[in-house]
């Protein structure tokens, strides 16, 4: 059940009717929210509902046990158990086949043909999101950052909260659980802001779908693709992944706002970043901050002269979080390298002035370099294999062994439209960040533009699969 489909619209109207007018007391409301979330999740594959509920139940009781444990050793054992359960589920469903296939490939390098059977299990949708969310709860309780909450149903409802269940943002338990306990009534201003975010998300998703065609052409790695089409395809993918994921996040945050829940923004115009570190402060913020707080800091963070190692491990695992493939590992490694390099260069006297400079010219150059590096990284992310990624990168830089055809006029038009689409998405987001709140207070602008934007989203679209981030 995808947000931009008629079935979700029907689901939400029915849900909202009962949520907003019938179940107004806390207990029935929590039960209703939980059931609705499980229906939403079960629409994909109801067989995985027990896995989701099982994760919640396990972590709920483990957190209680951690809090009650008398000594650190006992607490450590319990948090390790939570890690083992959550990462074990994730590993089994998401990474087992990748590991088995990689072992077989590795053995083949030494001439040994290993027939290792794979599991070929279906990946439960949203598993990477809700396991991280659940883990944050037990780790927070273990660290003493929060006390465990009473109420299993409330905790399960929070973990399976349908607006952000399948593709984030990844919420911390301390962000969502108090809200689940309180059930705030959104103000009319907040509700309108929620509608603004939903509409912005729909527009971004529409843009993302329209960008799919040039992406598919470039990443099919055919001989008949021109140099311009490669650049167009990679730029289009940058727009597609942003529109798709940020669009989903916006809709999730907007829907949550209509229900009285506040979820932090997950993107802050990431392609305006002026360094790789800045990019990660703006891109998929809920994941990057999760990795920072629960992985990077656990590894030691900036201490003990291991910053480079810790950054690299964090980014490598961050890459692997997105998918079980070497292309994602390479994507994470690439970001690890450019972040480390940025840190290193900033320590050199020759770059110190450059690093701290914020003049307009310097900022434009920093932005251009960062955007170029991010584009290169997307090649690894989207390519079918590392070999394909290599070939696309060579072709983009005119180094392909095959002769590339000359770009036609229509290709320049498509390139311009892709630039326009990516620019428009960022212009819109920038506008919402800077003036969204004022905008919702201007009814003569707000309502007509909302209707117009909805009409545009209904009018155009392209057949596409589900949101890209569902597969992660």
């Amino acid at each position, binding site marked *: 059940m995808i947000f931009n489909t008629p079935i979700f619209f029907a689901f939400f109207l029915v849900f*909202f009717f009962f949520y907003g007018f019938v179940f107004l007391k806390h207990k029935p409301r929590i039960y209703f929210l939980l059931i609705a979330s499980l229906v939403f999740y079960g629409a994909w594959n109801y067989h995985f509902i027990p896995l989701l509920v099982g994760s919640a139940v396990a972590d709920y009781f483990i957190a209680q046990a951690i809090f009650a444990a008398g000594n650190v050793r006992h607490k450590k054992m319990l948090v390790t158990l939570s890690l083992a359960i959550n990462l074990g589920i994730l590993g089994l469903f998401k990474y087992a086949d990748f590991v088995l296939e990689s072992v077989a490939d590795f053995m083949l390098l030494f001439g040994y043909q290993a027939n290792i059977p794979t599991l070929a299990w279906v990946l439960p949708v949203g598993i990477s999101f809700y396991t991280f969310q659940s883990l944050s709860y037990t780790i927070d309780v273990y660290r003493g950052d929060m006390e465990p909450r009473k109420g299993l149903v409330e905790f399960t409802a929070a973990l399976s909260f349908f607006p952000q269940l399948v593709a984030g943002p990844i919420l911390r338990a301390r962000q969502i659980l108090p809200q689940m306990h309180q059930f705030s*009534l959104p103000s009319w201003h907040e509700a309108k802001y929620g509608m603004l975010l939903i509409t912005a998300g729909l527009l971004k998703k529409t843009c993302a779908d329209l960008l799919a065609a040039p992406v598919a052409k470039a990443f099919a790695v055919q001989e008949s693709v021109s140099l311009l089409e490669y650049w167009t395809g990679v730029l289009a993918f940058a727009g597609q992944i942003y529109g798709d994921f940020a669009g989903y996040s916006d809709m999730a945050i907007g829907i949550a706002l209509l229900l009285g829940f506040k979820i932090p923004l997950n993107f802050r115009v990431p392609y305006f970043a002026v360094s790789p570190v800045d990019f990660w402060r703006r891109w998929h913020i809920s994941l990057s901050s999760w990795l920072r707080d629960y992985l990077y800091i656990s590894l030691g963070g900036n201490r003990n002269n291991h910053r480079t190692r810790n950054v690299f491990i964090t980014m490598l695992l961050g890459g692997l979080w997105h998918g079980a493939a070497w292309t994602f590992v390479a994507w994470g490694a690439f970001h690890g390298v450019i972040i480390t390099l940025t840190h290193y260069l900033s320590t050199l006297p020759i770059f110190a002035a450059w690093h701290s400079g914020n003049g307009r010219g310097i900022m434009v150059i920093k932005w251009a370099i960062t955007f170029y590096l991010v584009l290169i990284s997307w090649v690894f992310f989207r390519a079918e294999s590392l070999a394909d990624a290599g070939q696309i990168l060579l072709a983009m830089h005119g180094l392909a062994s095959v002769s590339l055809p000359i770009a036609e006029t229509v290709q320049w038009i498509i390139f311009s439209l892709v630039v326009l689409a990516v620019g428009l998405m960022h212009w819109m987001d920038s506008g919402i960040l800077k003036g969204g709140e004022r905008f919702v207070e201007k009814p003569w602008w707000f309502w007509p533009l909302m209707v117009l934007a909805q009409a545009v989203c209904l009018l155009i679209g392209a057949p596409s699969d589900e949101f890209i981030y569902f597969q992660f």
Partner: protein
Amino acid sequence: MTDPLNSVSEMQTPLMSNEASPSDYRRINLKIFLSILGGMLLALIAIRLFAMAMGASGEAFIGRPLGALSYLPQIVQEPTDQVMVFGSSMVDAGFSPRQFDRELKEQGVDIKSYNFGFGGLNPYFQDLLARRIKEHYLQNNKRLKLAVIEFNPFQTTQTRYQGSLAAIDAYFGMLSNEQERFDLLLEDPTRGILVYDIKYLRDSVSAEMVTFYFGQAFRSGRPKPNMEPETEAEVARRRDVNDKLEGRFEQDFPDYVNEPWSFAWQGGGTIPQERSDETVELIHEYFASLRTEYRMQADKLWRAQSADIIELNFEPILVESFIRMVKEFQQFSDAVEIIMLPKNSRYIVNSPEALARQQNVLKQIYQATGVTVRDFQNIPEITPDMYSDTTHLARYSGDVAFTHFLAEYYGELLKK
């Protein structure tokens, strides 16, 4: 930059547990509920107005099959025995019902035949169409004497199926009946609701179709063969003949109403006997001007790209749809034949692997339906100069020859 969510969270929000009353809740939720409903309603009205302004309707995309369906009440009332040749645009271009009827009459058989060839419909859609035809025949207690169904391997490939996905829900909405739509809703609620939405709220114009339509301008052109393009003289010749043909039809048939489906000619076109010698000569010349080597090679590349015409990687969904379609016809036809229409083998040469795949599919069809597929792809009666491109027969030459072939082939069967 401000953080709207942080600042939003700083605002005073009455809490249900201690501040907001149930009436507060209902009031604000009613505003939200009505805003969502009203906004969506206005947006839908806006897109309907846009579609009206553009003159767009789902029916325009499949005007010919829907037109044919609208004539079915008349067709089933015909007292004579009937033959229906059902298939793709290759049937549309390659079968002349009026000539078929004339030739059969000369053989002593009084029959009325129909050309039910429709471009752009793969077997998935043809199956739906066949169900609608069956309903009309069964309701009127009428049977076809002979149903000749085309198996078109080029319409049954994975590439073709992928290419049709943009229109699949809209076409399903237009070609299905209420029961089929309801069954889909129960089987796949996501798609079922989408189909209802497209059919009833969007006048059968899906977002995918609008995007496809407007996106045409931004698609790279058809693949170009690596050879010398057409000469100026060749292009000029075609333009000249085309200009001369302009208005000929209206001159010959001033009273003809241009129906979306040419019921007047039983779904086919006119026959040479109904046109002047000069017009027929011009039409021959026009088709000859289309058969330049460059155009034929370009057409071959395009069909290889859009229909996998050389390698023929079949789509199981479409093969199963074809089998279902044949079974539909078997329910209201005395005899059902499956044929493969001639193809221009000067250009379309399948790989051995493709032919093996095709053989497997033909076997699967036979096993499921009990009907042997008759392969007329390379019959000697059709020569390369009878095509308008690599797959379609040319009017007044190819269709004449192939219709004659069918009349001879099925004459004996129809005499029974």
